[in-house]
């Protein structure tokens, strides 16, 4: 479903866009007694400026891009609804970043003690701010943002059972989504380009596995927690080195069959929030344990100024050490979130990540402000302060950037 635009997917009747249009037509035309049809969403224009010359040939000093994410929602009586959220980005530089995805196209039937969702959906699990370790249902749309918070739509059947003793979620995931990576012209990439056209799987079912997940979650007083088990195709690929037909060196993603048990816990203690995510994974080389934990403390209404300042401290550990593929093998993170509580809802979040096993230090900043009830502006900056050639971010050492993004919400 993440289809680079240049592959003529739009005209194909079998394409996700075709299916989407068909379904939108169907539910828009459905004679409903409650006229609860809603079209919302946003458009965004983005300009990214890099402070340094690129390291690799054909990369550029700047990139402009445009994105659209409308959201169609229709609700019938008796708790039935359908939600469709297509997403499109067009990038001036990187053909891989110009892509289309169906973020959501999901039918939902909600009842007092259970809820069934069928279609393409999005699910988030986790509590920490810098690392999203246990989140596994949706594949990361890495080409959207290096923070990994953007996700691809995941086909699923999801049953949620709500009882006094907690919530049980069951997932059947019948289609696998491949991670997106920057193309040859894109910045913020590894020195060897990832070839997303030639992907390998451990399972013979390739992109059509039946992946399964079960999760139990509950709230007890000041504690919220969840524990899950996932069996299926790992979302995080390994890489093989290959030479492609043009004789260029490429990284080929390799997706293994894994089993993963994950835990997320959050506790409120006065003004403190304590957070922990942990996982144990088998099937990807040696079995390993990884975790991230920390706190968030908020100074509310500082000196009666109306400003709220939140301080975040987290530590991430991965038993694989230097074989760790996420970059968070032993890292300390510190962040500050400032909310001005003004008419424009001005807010800013800054964070620094220090690798304790090496010299790597990165800094990121995001800030946003509403311009009117429909317009919003945000800025984003990312700096690699220090790195050495053993660090996963070494290839990004010249990719410090400043980005400005303008949103129109409707």
């Amino acid at each position, binding site marked *: 479903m993440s289809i680079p635009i240049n592959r003529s997917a739009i005209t194909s009747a079998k394409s996700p866009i075709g299916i989407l249009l068909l379904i939108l037509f169907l539910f828009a035309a459905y004679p409903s007694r409650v006229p609860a049809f809603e079209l919302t969403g946003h458009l965004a224009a983005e300009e990214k400026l890099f402070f340094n010359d690129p390291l690799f040939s054909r990369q550029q000093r700047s990139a402009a891009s445009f994105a659209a994410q409308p959201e169609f929602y229709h609700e019938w009586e008796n708790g039935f609804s359908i939600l469709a959220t297509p997403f499109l980005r067009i990038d001036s530089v990187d053909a891989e970043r110009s892509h289309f995805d169906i973020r959501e196209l999901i039918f939902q039937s909600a009842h007092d003690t259970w809820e069934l969702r069928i279609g393409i959906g999005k699910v*988030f699990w986790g509590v920490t701010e810098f690392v999203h370790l246990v989140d596994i249902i949706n594949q990361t749309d890495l080409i959207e943002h290096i923070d990994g918070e953007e996700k691809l739509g995941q086909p699923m059947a999801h049953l949620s059972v709500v009882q006094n003793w907690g919530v049980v979620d069951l997932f059947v995931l019948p289609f696998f989504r491949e991670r997106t990576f920057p193309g040859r012209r894109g910045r913020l990439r590894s020195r060897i380009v990832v070839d997303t056209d030639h992907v390998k799987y451990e399972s013979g079912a390739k992109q059509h596995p039946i992946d399964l997940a079960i999760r139990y979650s509950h709230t007890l007083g000041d504690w919220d927690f969840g524990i899950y088990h996932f069996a299926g195709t790992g979302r995080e690929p390994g890489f093989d080195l290959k030479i492609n037909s043009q004789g260029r060196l490429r990284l080929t993603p390799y997706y293994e069959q894994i089993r993963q048990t994950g835990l997320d816990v959050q506790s409120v203690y006065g003004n403190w929030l304590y957070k922990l995510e942990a996982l144990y994974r088998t099937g990807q080389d040696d079995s390993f344990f990884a975790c991230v934990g920390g706190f968030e403390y908020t100074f509310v209404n500082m000196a*009666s100024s109306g400003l709220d300042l939140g301080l975040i401290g987290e530590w991430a550990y991965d038993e694989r050490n230097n074989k760790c593929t996420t970059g968070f093998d032993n890292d300390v993170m510190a962040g500050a979130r400032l909310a001005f*509580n003004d008419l424009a809802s001005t807010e800013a979040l800054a964070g620094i990540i220090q690798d304790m096993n090496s010299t790597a230090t990165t800094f990121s900043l995001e800030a946003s402000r*509403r311009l009117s009830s429909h317009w919003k502006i945000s800025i984003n900056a990312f700096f690699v302060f220090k790195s050495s050639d053993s660090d996963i971010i070494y290839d990004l050492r010249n990719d410090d950037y400043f980005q400005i993004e303008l949103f129109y919400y409707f």
Partner: protein
Amino acid sequence: MKQFINALLLFLIMPLLLPQNAASAETPEEKGLAIAMEADRQDNGFNDYTSDMLMILKNKHGKESNRKIRINALEVENDGDKSLTIFDNPRDVKGTAFLNYTHKIGDDDQWLYMPALKRVKRISSRNKSGSFMGSEFSYEDISSQEVEKYTYQWIRDEEYEGQQCFVVNFYPVDKKNSGYTRQLNWIDKKEYRPLKTEFFDKKKSHLKTLTFSGYRIYLDKYWRADKLHMINHQNGKSTILEFSSYKFRTGLKATDFNKNSLKRAR
């Protein structure tokens, strides 16, 4: 916000069980508590309601910004109420939703749903003086006003806007985390509705004034104000809340106020 509505409600309904012993040795504290309890009693039994709210924020230069919010509230026996607050406007926060379990004693339980990430986040409710959505209402102003959250002191009787009122001091029990040293309330004697509240900050100076107007009665029993106007005297900002489409006993249940329903809210 259901909460301050409840708050109002509690105050509203404390008719005159006092007169016969008024002359006896009732202390101002006892009288204040009796007024608060009667207001609370009169608002009992509403079960649930839904309402639309327009929030108009004004800065000191008179510049305005609006937020549109929907409120669902559920009465909980022997504890504070539950509420689900859904944001429709500005468009960039559309779909954001806030779930609150008020408790008579101790901190509330609060969760925030962020639709872009599909993430439910537990938030700390300990410090009550923070701004709600950038408005001049703090979390404690919009929180359900349970009798147990304050101690009381009747000050005097006085006419306010043509209505005979009790004037009562409310002192927060959680002194450390409240933004106030006290709230001075004008509560009408007939229906026990709050008509005006003056808020005094930690330095005991006058911080804000809240006025209630456009009271309507629902189900012949439950009074709700159409308009709440909060003025901050120290920063020159103000916030108006306009309520509409109140519906009582809509059939909402506890299962409409959990994290699953928070994620579905829209």
